[in-house]
């Protein structure tokens, strides 16, 4: 099961966070800081999985942006690693190649969330088909324009 999904920049500032398990608002910054610290300290040639407390972290770096996913022990790390990539590819497709632009995510926080919600639900992978994930959002966009 996926416990949380974080997008963090190199300075350690949270750009997006989604928790699939209830975490108190007050505890979130501390948890995020912890998580980011343990991920940022990893070398390039070390593996992308870190054990942290009672769960595992899977992280992937895209230029200045880190995506960190907290998962339980039963989850398959590599599949989550690829899920992150799938997510980034979808963002790529939607925002037409501006993943590196952190600003894009900051200013479209709601849309990124909507994409993520289509993809992961209650900590389970709900959908991975790119067109299907984007379909509801596209319709909404069309409505907004029209």
């Amino acid at each position: 099961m996926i416990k949380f999904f974080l997008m963090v920049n190199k300075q350690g500032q949270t750009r997006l966070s989604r928790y699939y398990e209830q975490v108190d608002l007050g505890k979130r910054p501390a948890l995020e800081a912890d998580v980011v610290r343990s991920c940022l300290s990893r070398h390039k040639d070390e593996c992308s999985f870190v054990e942290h407390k009672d769960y595992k972290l899977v992280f992937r770096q895209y230029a200045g942006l880190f995506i960190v996913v907290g998962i339980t022990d039963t989850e398959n790390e590599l599949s989550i690693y690829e899920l992150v990539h799938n997510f980034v590819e979808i963002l790529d497709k939607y925002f037409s190649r501006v993943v590196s632009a952190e600003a894009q995510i900051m200013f479209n926080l709601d849309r990124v969330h909507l994409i993520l919600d289509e993809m992961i639900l209650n900590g389970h992978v709900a959908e991975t088909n790119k067109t299907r994930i984007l379909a509801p959002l596209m319709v909404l966009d069309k409505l907004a324009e029209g």
Partner: protein
Amino acid sequence: MKEIMVRAIYCEMLGYEASFSYIHAIKLAQQGSAIEKRVGYLAVSLFLNESHDLLLLLVNTVLKDLQSTNLIEVCMALTVVSQLFPKDMIPAILPLVEEKLTNPKEIIRRKAVLALHKFYLIAPNQVQHIHSKFRKALCDKDPGVMTASLHIYLQLIKNPDSYKDLTGSFVAILRQVVGGKLPVDFNYHNVPAPWLQIQLLRILSLLGKDDQSTSELMYEVLDESLRRAEMNHNITYAILYECVKAIYTIYPKSELLEKAAKCIGNFVVSPKINLKYLGLKALTYVVQQDASLALQHQMTIIECLDHSDSIIKRETLEVLFRITNVKNVAVIVEKMLDFLKNVFMEPDILFLLYVGCFPLLSDTYSPNNEWFIQTMNVVFSLGGELMHPDIPNNFLRLLAQGFGSEEEEQQQLRVFAVDSYLTLLESDTAHLPQRFLQVISWALGEFSYLKDGLEPCKVTKLLAKLLDERNVTSESRSWILSAMAKLSAGPGAAALALQVSERYSSSLDTVLRQQALELLHLSQDPELHARFFHLWHVQVDSSLSFLDSFVSEALSQGAAPYKAPHQRQEELRQEKALSLEPYSISLPVSLSSCSITDRQSPTLLSMSSSLSGNSNELKAGSSTLKLEGVKRVWGKEGYLHQQDAVEEAAQVEEAATPALPLSPQQGGAESQQTHGDLTVVEQEKQKLASSLFVGLGSQNSTFLMGKSDSTSQQFRRKTRAADSTSSGVSERSSSSSHSSCSDFLHNNLLEDSQNSLNTQKIGVSNGTHEGPVTQSFQTTSKETSPFLDAGMVLVQPCSPQTELRDFVQPGSSGITQTSLRSQFPPELSQLPHSDISLLSSDHSLSLSACRAYRDDALLFVIILSNCSQSSTNGLSVQLDCKHIFETFSTLIQVEPHTQVTVAGSVSYRAVPGHTQTLQFTDKLFLTDFIRPLTLSTEEYGKLWLSFSQDVRQNLKLIQGEGDPLRATLSALKEQLQLHIVDIIGSEGIVACRLLPDSPCLLHCRIHGGSLAVWLRSPLLSLPDCLLYYCQKTLEEC
């Protein structure tokens, strides 16, 4: 508004609370259009949690959107429902969500299935009746909907028995997916629906676990997935990993195992670090099955041990941990300690776990005492304060009781411990962690007398020195003081003790001061000292019975009876639940506007009556708690558990000794190393490898691996029934069974059931008689003690004179069902009973069981029959009643379990001196404990008003000739043993009780095409469980 909401989301993300905006988020979801609405829902799902009060305000919006004709709105509503929804409100929207399952749009169907998944997660009982719809979703023509339904199945199959028939479908789906039959847009980097494949593999491994016939169905498709996943991409490796895991979980097939192991080999040697990690992880459970597989990868493992990445290193150690045996334990533990030393620079809590592993390793495999103590010393000094407190406690118990080894060896261990601690104390003690100091002082206090020529004075001096250390905490100080108290008998020590106690008797710490004073008195009065420490093993009256009179006096003066903390909490919770009541009552009102009119309970009784009813019940429950029940944990022989533990330990030792001879594999491993030119470094590595993997030969290793399991099994007391020369069996069995039974009634302690309930000794007469022996245990609800009212069921053997029977019939080999039935005891055959089913058998004995329903009890009848030609001696039957007890109390009170497992074993001797055991398990269902409750309509009415909790459900009506209500109710009556109180027009009232006397009332009314049922019972989960059976019964009709 939308922009503002996004900003509020941003604020919360950065950790600033924006609770003022919550209500606006709900408003936005309610009033906004399209994207605004979506953002409103999104904000709600981010801000609120399941138990948030504001969520109730969302219910109406969701209801409205679900009924909307706009697909997008329906879609949004379903999404938010599957993210969070208040549990109590599920019935309100369930029909709407169900209806969406047949929507022509795939996205709606998919989201509806996901919403049901959510419901299943938070309230499994509410969706029990739509399991058939899940099957329909699984067969949906759209792969997306099918994928969504797999989430539900993955949850459901955690309890795989009822889903074995679906194995074929899952295999077929996987085959199609692997074969690339899905549309192209499901591909990810040219791999067809990888996450779906992983999900399916997980389901298959759950289904195939320990089940040969089911596993056989999947071998082919697993093989295919292994072959197909050749592409060099991360995601294919993820699938491969899951595949290998599945292969190792299901019933093994050697060919596949080999292939899987080879696959893992590719992982481990991969230069990609992530793959290496996954490979090592896979290896951890591969070696659990067959440790010799590690031999193939030994060099890789050694390389990984020296890897710069600590995560990889950790994973490697995990592998090593699994292959530990007597011979390599020293090397492996050394490696682990090295690792710990490096890692503790950055204190990570996770390594606690590692420290925790050591004692385990050390206990089972330790080559000798000296090594053990030394290793433990290192562990203690490294582990420091972070160590889990169980570890030192365990270690001390071990020192006190020994491994169950020879007394002499034990003494040696203690002496050695004392020795090593003395040397430690003589050197610098400043760096030793507090926990270690405590261990040291305790061990010295207890065992230093064992060492010849060691003056207690010397030890006391060392301890006194320790006491003065600045960094010693007061907790450790009190440990040290009590150690000194034990040693203070000697003349030199007494003087020193006096000095110490004088200093500490003015200490600010009260505990220390008290101990110092105790020390003072003890050291001055040798006689007192001797008496005190001889009294050490005094029997403790743990029931505190000497307080009984005090308690009763207080009670008579009007004091409130004692309530256990959990009971008090329960009460609080109930009160809280009551305060929430208005919500559920107001619900029907709001719902009726949404055209769901039949939600009200037929008798919306006044709140006050239900309140008072409830509090009455509470009072009744609390006043019955008495202290007597705790008595007799300490028998004349002492505490029973302890004895068992020692014996068990003895068994461990026995099992460990045969493992000592060198394995033949060791030679092989070494010869492998010799060929080829090797650099010095490599040679060293290989040397390490040979020491690490020693003893992993096939037979030896499996034996060792298996051993830990066997020792962890519950210890079974062996009873040796002397060969009897008479055929009078029941007399002897009565004595043993009776005593244990009466103990049981007195104890009434569920914990005690760790010992097998009772051990019936039956010696079948010494002739060559053969034939079935029937024995019946009575599962009865004894009203002996008032606090059984919670519905606990006592298992009690019947009094031997009347009920325990032996049938010894010559010459009836080849027993059939009919012959078994003829053996059925006459007084039981009059009772309604289930079919006799064969539970277990071997070449000489077969065991069948049957359940007979008495009005006040369930009789579990075990029928043993001897199918060999020879006689069987020393027969004993054990029923693991822990299960019955615990699960029944949980069945009723905690979790709505609908069935429990009874396990037991029969041991007998076919050949003299050779005991064989036959294990068996059987299931008892809730329905076995349901009896009709005969009531008049007036009584029913009174009872109905006295319960407040209401559960409502729609049931299927049986359409047939005559009145459908009558037909349905009589079907339920037949199957579930209910009592139909009255049927008036389109309404019927039905009553039943769960043994011993927990009533459950049903009020049924025909509504539309279905039967609306309201259930009330003092046991909260009983209605849920009963409903489950009602549904099942009606489905089957």
